[in-house]
């Protein structure tokens, strides 16, 4: 112990039985630059205090100084693992604010890309959860599949991570000719991969023992903290905005909403794991029903929404992604606020992380599935 540390120890009455450990901002398991101040009693965590904002980049202030179309590339950087879905949510908000009708084909394209993005995002979550629990192999497996999805995205948009592909009013480019065949081939190839994950993770007794009954979040607390997405469903509430507050054309597809019972890490794992199956179903149906036609609707020369405000929410891979836009009638939004699911979901960590072991904090954090780009904005 250095003299300074000695002093700190004196000040805080710190003993080895009760010590403070800073997890992050540089730590392999905080999925970015999250900092958790852990109060430890031996190995038991008695208190978790999250410190966020290390990745804050004035997203909302920048948005106020850009015209509506210029914001799209910035939304990519929110949840950089699900850029397509951020685009989706943002353009949907502006379209509803102005009242633009999106062509049928563009809606189908949005759903196909959005659901592929959901699979890709859940794959990253699966891989990193595996890493957090010491299972390295699942990480490589998940990334192998994700690469294929990124290949598809690249063939459509030319980008692999930050696509900026959705446009207000529709889509900028049609699918390339080979896309439909490629996408079908990918789905056929991907479906048998899912049981492989089960063999590596779900059926593994060590994994089960590690996560079952861990970080329980009951339905009442979940609603109190406005938890959304797979985390809310794991707590036993059948709530999916694609079904309960349908946007785009989600009301046309058949899919199940997986629900957990106890809201522990295992339930969150299973919900996301089954959601991948469901997303595959949606993509298959959308590919089946993809109509020909226009891909971008009729737009005014200058996008000037009427004075007013709107809050629109979509079901991003992490939960309820909301955009609150206030327009003063000019080309730029007067106020542009992002309600990011990871930000809200992370706020419950002090509640569910209390009383577990250090190793469990890592697993619980992994099961919340945060992306710091979105938390800090």
């Amino acid at each position: 112990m250095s003299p300074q540390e000695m002093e700190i120890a004196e000040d805080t009455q710190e003993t080895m039985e009760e010590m403070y450990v800073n997890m992050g901002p540089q730590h392999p398991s905080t999925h970015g630059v999250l900092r958790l101040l852990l109060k430890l009693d031996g190995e038991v965590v008695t208190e978790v205090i999250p410190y966020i904002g290390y990745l804050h980049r004035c997203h909302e202030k920048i948005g106020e100084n850009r015209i509506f179309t210029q914001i799209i590339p910035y939304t990519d950087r929110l949840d950089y693992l699900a850029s397509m879905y951020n685009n989706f949510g943002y353009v949907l908000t502006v379209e509803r604010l102005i009242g633009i009708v999106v062509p049928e084909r563009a809606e189908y394209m949005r759903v196909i890309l959005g659901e592929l993005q959901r699979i890709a995002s859940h794959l990253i979550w699966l891989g990193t959860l595996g890493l957090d629990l010491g299972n390295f192999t699942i990480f490589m497996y998940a990334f192998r599949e994700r690469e294929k999805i990124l290949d598809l995205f690249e063939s459509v948009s030319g980008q692999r991570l930050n696509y900026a592909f959705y446009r207000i009013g529709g889509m900028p480019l049609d699918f390339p000719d080979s896309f439909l065949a490629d996408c079908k081939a990918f789905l056929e190839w991907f479906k048998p991969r899912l049981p492989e994950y089960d063999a590596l993770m779900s059926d593994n007794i060590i994994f089960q023992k590690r996560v079952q009954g861990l970080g329980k979040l009951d339905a009442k607390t979940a609603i109190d903290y406005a938890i959304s997405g797979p985390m809310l469903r794991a707590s036993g509430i059948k709530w999916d905005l694609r079904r309960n507050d349908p946007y785009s054309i989600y009301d046309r597809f058949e899919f199940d909403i997986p629900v957990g019972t106890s809201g522990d890490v295992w339930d969150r794992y299973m919900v996301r794991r089954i959601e991948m199956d469901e997303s595959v179903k949606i993509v298959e149906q959308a590919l089946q029903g993809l109509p020909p036609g226009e891909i971008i609707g009729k737009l005014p020369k200058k996008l000037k929404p009427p004075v007013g405000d709107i809050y629109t929410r979509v079901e991003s891979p992490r939960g309820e992604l909301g955009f609150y836009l206030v327009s003063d009638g000019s080309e730029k939004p007067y106020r542009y606020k992002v309600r990011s699911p990871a930000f809200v979901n992370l706020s419950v960590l002090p509640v569910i992380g209390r009383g577990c072991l250090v190793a469990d904090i890592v697993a619980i954090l992994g099961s919340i599935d945060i992306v710091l780009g979105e938390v800090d904005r």
Partner: protein
Amino acid sequence: MTPDEVTEAIKSQFDDAVKASEIKGVEARMDIHQEKSYEILAALKGMGFDYLNCLSAVDRIASGELEVVYNLSSLSQPTKILVRVRVPREDPIIRSVVPLWSTADWHEREAFDMMGIRFDGHPDLRRILTSEDWVGYPLRKDYQDERLVPYEPV
């Protein structure tokens, strides 16, 4: 409850506290007075709107006010609520809704951090996204940072 019913119920209960109201689709929108904001929001929660989707702060610099916007919804009914409360810019104090919805904790900290709205009764009102020693409230329209270099066209 339909949006009309909600508006009616609130109006009958807190008549003079509701400045204006509007129905937009399934969404009931209300502008309310600052004094009764907590009571009205508590009443809305009592009506089953137990899900606070979002809490935003808007700088209405033209009228010298800051606006706090609550987006409420429910997991059991389609109706949504949007409540706007305005507080003076000079002394922006409003009652915290953390006792009603725990999720407001971080949202209010963010509003405090970005707009400088002080939430009375918040358990732990600290800056959340900027560093602890930050000066000023970055999302206010008149925010100036001497470190920023003005943009000059080349």
